[in-house]
């Protein structure tokens, strides 16, 4: 049985780029159960030696692949592909097919953030983060 105590989470990370691979490696190194999905086999090279979880080579926009990852049991799903539209489809499949409670998606296009939030997907936008951070340097009314 999978241990579901709060300090031992089951994480599914979709997209094994620099962000995905680093989060996966770090989470794995502190004892969480991690599954990483990517449709490019080479992407798994981004994982560090600390990673002891599982990798699934497949397209997460396909229901079967999400099922293989036992995504319905995930405490958190991080949807981190480089394409907003892909991330939206995967997030919706997680929510509506597998009833995942916590879906966190990367959204590049600020225009898309509202839509993700409408469907109760938590959003991390590198674009907005950069804009906010840089705006801190700018004195005045830029927001």
């Amino acid at each position: 049985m999978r241990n579901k105590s709060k300090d031992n989470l089951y994480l599914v990370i979709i997209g094994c780029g620099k962000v995905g691979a680093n989060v996966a490696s770090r989470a794995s190194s502190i004892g969480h159960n991690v599954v990483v999905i990517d449709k490019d086999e080479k992407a798994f090279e981004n994982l560090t030696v600390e990673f002891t979880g599982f990798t699934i080579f497949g397209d997460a926009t396909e229901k079967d692949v999400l099922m293989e990852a036992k995504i319905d049991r995930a405490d958190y799903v991080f949807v981190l592909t480089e394409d907003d539209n892909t991330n939206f489809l995967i997030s919706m499949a997680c929510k509506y097919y597998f009833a995942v409670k916590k879906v966190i998606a990367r959204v590049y296009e600020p225009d898309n953030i509202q839509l993700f939030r409408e469907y109760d997907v938590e959003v991390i936008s590198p674009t907005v983060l950069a804009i906010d951070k840089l705006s801190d340097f700018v004195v005045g009314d830029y927001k």
Partner: protein
Amino acid sequence: MKVVIIGGERIAYFLAKSISSKGYRIYVVNKDAQLCEDFARDLKAVIVHGDASKRSVLEQLDIEEEDIIVVLTNKDKENLIITQLAKKIFGVKNIVTLINNPDNIELFNKLGISAAVSTTTMMQRAVENLLFGKELEEFLSLEEGKLAFLKIEIPENSKVIAKKLKDIGLPHDCVVGGILRKGEVIIPHGDTILDIGDILFIIAVPTVQTEIANLLTGEKDAKKI
């Protein structure tokens, strides 16, 4: 009220052509610049070159709630985000979309897009009907194909003729709900004996469809497939 056709090549063209000939206002949106030029030359429609999965592009279309939106790209992820932007941000009620992966039909339905057309599913039905031959016909499928209603006729040389229903070894995941024999309806039980030309109405899960077909239409001496 206007009809907005997003994505697609030939389908978009012929759809736009037939709808505009009935006097409706048409907008066609496509990512492909060359295609847009062709459309602009050949269609009576407003042509917009751009990626409709971007909110800024949709904003240029002056979309109103009463408009009809038809989404035809060959990528479900684009169709999904376009339909949801149209629905949630622009409040469009009438949206029709193409679906490429049949697994996604249910997802679109759950997200409020009931007019989701899957050409894959249609082709699949057509091919399956050919595969199973004329004897088997799926005449209804429920819950996105999780339950199938089959109609199957017992051919002349079937090995189940003159056998009791309970003895022919039908799979567990099916029920014979009725038999049509020479125009008479029989509600069968285990002791009902099958005859040539009986038309069986069977409720089954789709995975046993082939097994049922092979069992009922298999010839007397044919080896098990």
